[in-house]
């Protein structure tokens, strides 16, 4: 069953067409990776889905409801949760307060504190919970933001380059965490450059090139697609 349906969506910035007539379906319960070379339009498509950009054409459905004209907060209230490309945390607030701000609408009292502790422990942030978020390393800020996104207990977790700036160990752990969320029923849409990470987590892959859908399918078929290798992966990576 489709959780997200992007139908004929285009986005033009003046004379530049960043996304052109894209159709994309993200099924409930899958980990779907959106990949492509620089300038392919991945981040623009991501921002269209989360509501940061209004599309020039087309429509976006979430759980069969047309959300094309809804603001980001309304989409979040429907069950989306978002982690942006650059770490986007409240840098001047303590780590725990970041998580608390994300949790407070869903939980209160002892339940909320227990969930704060669980998330902080899950992302190895418990020892730093009183530090300012801005004092964390880049990778820790990425985790904090993923933790904030998870705190909303979303149906759909949207991650834009979640491992940017992370060490290989941190990247691997992030992948395992994403797979564990998915195992609990969460749908995940990931925009990612790191092919090792894509190999680790992806169930279905969509390749974007020059603002259009270039290929789509399961991970293996995409990795073995010569044309995809030519435009993006580099042939040596495809084998």
């Amino acid at each position, binding site marked *: 069953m489709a959780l997200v349906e992007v139908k004929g969506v285009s986005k033009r910035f003046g004379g530049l067409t960043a996304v052109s007539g894209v159709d994309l379906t993200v099924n409930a319960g899958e980990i779907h990776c959106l990949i492509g070379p620089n300038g392919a339009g991945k981040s623009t498509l991501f921002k269209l889905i989360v509501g940061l950009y209004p599309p020039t054409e087309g429509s976006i459905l979430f759980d069969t409801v047309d959300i094309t004209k809804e603001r980001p*907060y309304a989409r*979040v209230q429907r069950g989306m949760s978002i982690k942006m490309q650059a770490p986007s945390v409240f840098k001047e*607030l303590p780590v725990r307060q970041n998580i608390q*701000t994300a949790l407070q609408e869903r939980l209160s009292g002892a339940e909320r504190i227990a969930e704060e502790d669980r998330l902080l422990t899950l992302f190895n942030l418990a020892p730093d919970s009183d530090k*300012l978020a801005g004092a964390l390393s880049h990778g820790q800020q990425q985790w904090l933001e993923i933790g904030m996104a998870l705190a909303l207990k979303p149906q759909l977790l949207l991650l834009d380059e979640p491992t940017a700036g992370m060490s290989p160990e941190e990247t691997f752990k992030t992948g395992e965490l994403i797979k564990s969320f998915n195992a609990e029923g969460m749908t995940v849409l990931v925009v990612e450059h790191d092919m090792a990470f894509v190999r680790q987590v992806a169930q279905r892959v969509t390749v974007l090139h020059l603002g259009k859908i270039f290929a789509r399918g399961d991970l293996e078929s995409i990795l073995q697609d010569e044309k995809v290798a030519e435009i993006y992966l580099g042939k040596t990576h495809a084998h």
Partner: protein
Amino acid sequence: MFKLLEGPQTLGRGRMFWACFLVVLAGALAYPLFADSYDVGNFAYFLIWIFMALGLCLMWGYGGMLSFGQTLFFGIAGYGYGVLAINMGGGTATIAALVLSVVLAMMAAGILGYFMIWGGINGIFFGIVTLSATLVLAFFLGQTAGPEWHIGPARLNGFNGMKGMDPLTVGDFYIEGSALYYVMVALIVIVYLALRMLVNSGIGNVIVATRENPQRAEMLGYDVRKYQLLTFVIGSGLAGLSGALYTSWGQFITPSSIGLPAAAMPIVWVAFSGRSDLTATLIGSFLLLFGFQTITVYSQQAALVLMGALLLATVMLAPQGFVLGIGKLVADWLRGRRRGDGDVVAEAGRLQSEES
């Protein structure tokens, strides 16, 4: 609910802090017993402005919205009180006039705030638009000297200002002198504690989060515009409370209490005090008002120059605010902590965003 009196958004916690609070409150309550009535009246006058300062602290320090429009809402409620008190015939109706004039200021803030916030005005442009609206009102009221400018029997009177309204009255009892002073103290305690609870609540978390990163706050499912509007309406309403009390205190109000020099004053008070903390703003604003008034007796120009110099010194030397900085040093000393401790740094940063 009282747990919210302490929290991450406010300095001061524990028995020591609240013991100090009670000592200061007891001193304030006992003051009229020792001071002469002139000084008590002067103190009541200083306290009138504290609401406006706390309102700006909420908007600017916590919400990240630098409003230059505090005297706009001060003026709306001040003139509103005058018009209503005169038209309603004085007496106990002045209490209703006070409440209605504050509501009027909040409604005006709601309308202006709606267009600004939903229109995407933020940052420095927020200050420019609110200042523009303030100057428009001051200019307009200065043009109302003619007899045609009246609302019922209440004449606006141009630059000479409106007069003739009753002070706050209950039955035949005029709330003046010591009585007004006690009303001020009670209102300040209520407003101060209520604001502490607000900023330490879930709503306060979102207000601060919106200051820090409005896009992230929206990505957590909050319609940040509503929180910004709420902050603006409450902060402006407090300026309105100052305005209505001011008119009641002096039984007059003029456009000069709205214009540019007056509009700049709350910015100086709050910046000097420490915009990101209510207690620092309360103490610092009172001290500045006291100092300003003392110097004004000798030279108003000197007092204004001093205010300008203080603003420059704050920007250059203590962008977090002098009173807040001193308060943190005292807190560190009392806790036996050395500057540079992780917790202290966390607290300092939590209470202060340089970006805002």
